[in-house]
Every structure is written in structure tokens, then in C-alpha cells.
């Protein structure tokens, strides 16, 4: 791959998305219309982690 992508920068934004979504759920007061849509957002965020976020420090052990 010749082209360089901003992996670290993207990973940071993905972490921020996840944090924001979790925070939204924390303050939802149990409103299902919020909680369930946040779950869907988090599923999409997980795909971003799989595609980009998990590449950061691939030699590390996050277990």
C-alpha cells in the first residue's frame, strides 16, 4: 500500500464516537428510543474499530 492513511487520527475519532455514544446512553434516563438507537450506533462503531481502530499498535496485546 503506497498511500498513507491517517490511522491514528481516525482511531482517535472512533474512540471519541464510542465515548460519546456511551455517554448519551448513560444520560438517556432509560428512553428506549435513545438506548436502542445508541446500540445500533455502537454496532457501527465496532465495525469502525474492526476496520481501523484495531490496527493501532497491532503488535500489542490488549487481552
Amino acid at each position: 500500500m503506497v498511500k498513507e492513511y491517517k490511522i491514528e487520527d481516525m482511531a482517535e475519532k472512533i474512540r471519541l464516537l464510542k465515548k460519546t455514544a456511551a455517554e448519551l446512553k448513560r444520560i438517556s434516563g432509560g428512553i428506549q428510543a435513545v438506548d436502542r438507537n445508541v446500540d445500533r450506533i455502537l454496532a457501527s462503531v465496532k465495525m469502525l474499530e474492526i476496520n481501523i481502530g484495531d490496527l493501532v499498535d497491532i503488535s500489542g496485546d490488549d487481552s
Partner: protein
Amino acid sequence: MKPEEQYWNPVLETLPREKLQQFQLKKFKNILKWAYENSPFYRSLYKSAGLEPGDIRTADDIVKVPKTEKSMLREAQGREPYPYGSILSVPIEQVTEYRQTSGTTGQPVYHPETWQDWEWSAESWAYALYAYGYRDYDRVFLPFGYSVNIAFWAGHYGAEKIGCEVVPGGVLDTEARILKMKEIRATAFMATPTYILGMADTARKLGLDPAKDLYIKKITAAGEPGACVPATKKRMEEAWGAKVYDQVGATEIGHWGFECQAQAGLHVLEAFHLVEIEDVETGANITEPGKRGSMVITTFDRFAHPCIRFDSKDVIEWSPVERCECGRTFRLLKGGVVGRADDITKVKGVLLAPTAIEEVVRDIPELGDEYEVIVTKKGDIDDITLKVEIAPDFKRNASAIEQKLVQQLRLKTGLRYNLEFHDYGTLPRYDVKAKRFKDLRHKE
């Protein structure tokens, strides 16, 4: 072409091998730890083997992890939490989709999907469909039953994720599906090789030439080995005037392999799976090309029903091509899934893969698409019968066709057959997966 126009994820798909292997080891450790901590089935399996997740430090340690197989999954299900049993690794309230295996090899295996796992399924399909050239301008027709079996469900959502316009052809019959595909000018569809050929046959009966009267440019073939059998692929591509791409997966595993446009073999989706090839007789790990074995596969990042070192019984071999011209670093399998370890059987002392017979039959243009193989025993001796159809317009050449068939079968399979020639259209037709190989020896 820019990398992002060529690959769904240019970073993962062209990751240098060394980094890809580090990535896989990290992912393997993660799913192993998850399963150990969340699934009573896996915890019990590993404790019995004296294994803890921390014991796996290097790639060489992975073979220490006990394998699983379908019979173990079947045994664990049907209990609480019902119906998934002790493999379930998330609270059952998080399960949002029910799927099950087709039951081709026995009792179906129930498969739970959380919303996240289902998103994963669509994501994995997006890698394949993008490699085949599906783009947001494609109108993709899905001619399958939208039932409890997973079939092309994830293909639907994978195409949607890419931005394609997806047309569900669920309850329509084959004629109605073809007419709808023509009416809306669908540019791609997905089906089993059996059904791809069957649809072409039906279109011709409607007076349509699929290659000229429809608008299909790409076909995803899955569910059976056909698209990597050269003669079958050729028939499908000629019938539809379209490129046919092989795609492999299973309910328990998810989608795990695809052809790129170079069509030099089947790429393993290595960012999502670890594939090992095991020598069926010795159990040794096969890493070099040219030697067939049974696939042992681990799926990363699918958490409700983990799939770790699952012996799928798919027979595969590594390709000698080290780097595909498409630029992907995902390793290639030669000829895709060659068959199933369950299907490869000894007949008259010779190892026989049903796909070898298919390659012979479909390579003779005077024969129809359908065939049937029946193995029986006469006394102590195996007896094998091959039923074929002569294509319309070739009936007068029957003896020359028979001669060609006998020669090719002898050459490619090393066996002599009782040959039966049937009228065109009289052998069974199948809508999804075909059952053309019938070994009746154990029943006699």
C-alpha cells in the same frame, strides 16, 4: 485506480503479511478470552484440556486449542438459554436475529446474532461484493426464500451497506423472478450455482436469452462449490454473459472467502478469520501449497456464538500464488473449496471427489447441466452409476458423447461407471443446494 476505489478497506486488504499475522494473533487471543469468560461450553472444553487463554502467546501455540465441530454444537444446543444452549456468550436479551444451518448434514444448528454480530456479517460480505465490483449504481436482485436459513440474508445487507439498490425476490417463483429482473434491469444477483444454471434454463423456456435480454453483469455464486469448478463457472458465465464470482461461508463461521477480479483462486478474508489446513490423516498443519486438507477456522469479532478452531470439513489447499495481482495480501486457496471431507469417499479403492465428476460432465457441451451419481454395493464390490442428460439437438450423437464421457471420467477420476442417458429435463432440478451425489452403500 485509487486504492479506495479498488478495495472496501485498502488498509486491511493490503496489510503486509507479517503485520496481518500479528493482527490475527491479537484477534485470536481476544476471541479465545471472550469465549472462555462468557461461554460455559468453551470454558468447559478448555478446562478439560487444561488450557487457559493466557497459554496462547504465539501463533505456534494456537494448535494447542481444542478443535470444535458441528456435532459438538448440536449437542450443546436445545438447552438453556433455549434454544442456543451453553455456547451462547451474551445475555439472550441481546440476541436480535435467529438463523439456522440448512440441515444438509443433519439436525440444523441454531445461530443467534446480536445487532453487532449481524452488522459484522454485512461488513464481511461488503469486502467480497466490493471485490467483485458491486458499487452504489448496481441494482442487485436476491432470488432466494428469505427464510430461517442464513442463505443470502447477509448478502442483502452487505450490498445495502455498499450502497447498492437491493431488490428482494423472496416469494416469487423462478419465472416471476426472471421477468422482474428483466423489468427493473437488475445488474447483479446472488444464488447457488445450481440455481444460477436453473434460472438460465427457465429464462430460455420463456423465450429469453439471459445473456442478451437481461442486464446482469455480475453474479455471486455461493452455497455450493460450483463457481470454482472451471467447467461449471464457464457454463454460468456463458449462459448469463456475466462474470461469476465464488463466495464461501457457513452459518457457524460467517462469510470467509471470495474471488477477486483476477479470479486466481479464493482469497481468505484473513482480517476476519484464521484459516488452518489440517492433514486429514496425520492432523499436521499444512502450510505449503499443493496439499489438500480439512479446514479448521476461527472467526474473530463475532461474539454471541463464537467459532473457534471449527473443523468445517471443507477440503481446501493453499495456492502457489504468493501475491495476487489484485494487490490483496490475503492468502489464496487453489480452486476454492474442492469438496467436503464428508463427501470425499473411496469407491473401488479410489478416492473420489464429486466435484471431479461435475468438472467432466459440465465440460462436455453436448450434456445438460444436471447429473446424478449413485454409489451402491453389489456383493462386496462398489458399483457407481452416473446419470446424465443429453442437451437438446445432440441426441443423434449419443455414441460419440458416450465415448468422450467414458474417456474423460477414466482420465479425471480413474473409475469406470454405469452410464445412463436420460432425456433432457428429466433428472431432478434443485432450487437451492443440489443433492446429486448419493452414496447408498451404508444403507444396504
